[in-house]
């Protein structure tokens, strides 16, 4: 359902992705790991359509469409969801209104009628339980004054509401304590029960993968996937760090 071939991308003239190849099939969970600055978040951003990244080459085919041709909103309508590493605060727009607009815009693009208010509220109630988010919080301005944990839970809550086919989690574990991590992971695992839904989980640490167990683990370094394996690879990285991978790739011991 997602096929990334030789994807190259730059920002401000600096090449960050140097030829990524990755295929994700329905229902699979792929973890993308790697040291800081390896291009993990760039990959997530490029897939979601962030404008400041320039595509230098390669292709991304998503459900038989050229993904790189689509605007961010069209990608959302096509079923791609990015959970942000740093969710944005938007004063004056409540989470409820924001999501109502988002849900109905996506439905409109997909030729569906807007959701009626009662069904929408029912759906909100149901999905908010998934990540144990306080419904009162949803009446407030989007993410404004939310704690780090609340913001991340709100991301997963939004994902649950928009029911994507591909969820991309960009360092969702950063800044979470162990309880929040568990709640967020439980939410994601609930969404995994739909066996057609796939995930790309970008993370620096193995910790998250104890809760969201991946089918595949890829290590990104210098803008390339330099190693792929199963969840055992993540454990190995946890024990040994990233240096041995760097050594393998660079062919030398760092000073």
């Amino acid at each position, binding site marked *: 359902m997602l096929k990334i071939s030789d994807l190259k991308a730059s920002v401000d003239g600096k090449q960050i992705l140097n030829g990524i190849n990755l295929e994700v099939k329905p229902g699979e969970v792929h973890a993308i790991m790697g040291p800081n600055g390896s291009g993990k978040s760039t990959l997530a951003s490029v897939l979601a359509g962030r404008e400041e990244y320039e595509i230098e080459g390669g292709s991304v085919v998503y459900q038989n469409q050229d993904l790189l041709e689509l605007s961010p909103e069209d990608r959302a309508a096509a079923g791609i969801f990015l959970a942000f590493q740093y969710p944005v605060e938007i*004063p*004056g727009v409540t989470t409820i209104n924001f999501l109502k607009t*988002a849900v109905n815009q996506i439905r409109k693009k997909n030729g569906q009628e807007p959701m009626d208010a009662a069904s929408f509220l029912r759906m909100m109630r149901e999905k908010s339980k998934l990540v144990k988010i306080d419904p009162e919080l949803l009446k407030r301005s989007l993410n404004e004054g939310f704690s780090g944990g609340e913001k991340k839970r709100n991301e997963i809550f939004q994902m649950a509401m928009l029911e994507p086919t591909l969820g991309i989690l960009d360092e969702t574990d950063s800044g979470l304590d162990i309880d929040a991590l568990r709640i967020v992971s439980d939410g994601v695992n609930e969404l995994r029960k739909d066996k057609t839904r796939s995930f790309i989980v970008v993370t620096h640490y193995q910790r998250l993968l104890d809760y969201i167990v991946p089918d595949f683990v890829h290590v990104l370094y210098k803008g390339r996937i330099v190693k792929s394996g199963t969840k055992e690879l993540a454990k190995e990285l946890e024990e040994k760090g990233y240096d041995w991978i760097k050594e393998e790739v660079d062919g030398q011991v760092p000073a």
Partner: protein
Amino acid sequence: MENQVLIDKFSAEFAAIQQSLNGKSESPFNNVRKAAMAQFERLGFPTPRHEEWKYSNLKKSLASDYNYHVESKLNENDVKSVPLPNLHGNVLYFVNGIYKAEYSEIVTPTDKLKIMTFKEAQAEIPEILEAHFSKHVDSENEAFSALNTALANDGVVVYIADNQTLEEPIIMRMLGDVTTENVGAIVRNLIIVGQNAEVKVAEAYRTMGEKASFTNAVTEIHVGKDARVDYYKVQNENDFSTHVGTTQVYQEDRSYFYAATFTINGGFVRNNLNIILDGEHIETFMYGLYIPNENQHVDNHSVVDHRKPNSVSNELYKGILMDKSTGVFNGKIFVREDAQKTNAYQNCRNVIVSKDATMNTKPQLEIWADDVKCSHGTTTGQLNDEAIFYMQSRGIPKDEAIRLQLLAFAEDVVSKIKIDTIHEYLEGLIIEKLGE
């Protein structure tokens, strides 16, 4: 010299009015007008060399020819063609600055609310008129206020007696009929709110037609002891309109005054909001929103003058500037020596949507008392790209994301509107304009 030609034109008009007075030229009301005319002739029209007009150049507006006292051919249906739905209130209609009693709908009984022309007021409440007319308007320094005072004739005196609470708002609908020619209008109204009285007043300006207009408006509001006044000014005129308006407010002890100024559309707009807090335990709130696009210019000047101790003023203006529009905010706060324990706050926040738009802000605080709390702040920034991308990534199209953010930015001013029907009406106008 162009300036002098214009001044002479108004002098001639003033002389003609004086001739027609037939022996009433020595009335106190007329003496005030005569003095104001002399001030105007001395001042002339301001240029950008004038400190208060540095960023607002009237040259283009003054270069056009305007016809004053144009008798509009619009009928009642035309005048009422933009109704406010579900509005239950006193609706006063003005065309080209001239009060149209025959179209107006007054629902509040006359023992609570009196609406009089200046002529009627001179006959019915001469002492009250004399006590309040042009008492605080600065004709010495403001040419437009001087001219307005000199030519004041066609507006109304709104009088709310002591201890009266008006349930129904007073909506003054100002229509500029520019269907066939350029029109100049002198709009002058005086609102006297008695002690412990309560009222909501709105002034709504719009134009009909595509010719140019020059409106010189002055509204004086006297807020008696313990009185409560909500005042709205809504401007939605065509791109060829010039509006120079002053709202002059005088507050007594324990009174409450709230002003909200919404400039939706207009070619060249200058609003002066001058408030004198001449009493203790006064509360004053000022909100403003302006959303110019294309080549429009909106200038808001405010003066808050704390003269006595223990009062509070709070000001928040917000602007959204599009295309090649320009904006000015100049907020003065005076805290006089006697005005200890004053709390005065001022904030002006702007979003520049286009790289060609400009905003000039100038806060000015002059504080002579030592035990006060004052703060001011201005910000001018751009839309948050990250927030736009965030919304897009949730399926919201870019233009809709921008619109939602701008509406959210405007919301904390819009939400302050306490008359539901005006709230809805304005929200509609704002959405429409931001959607362009």
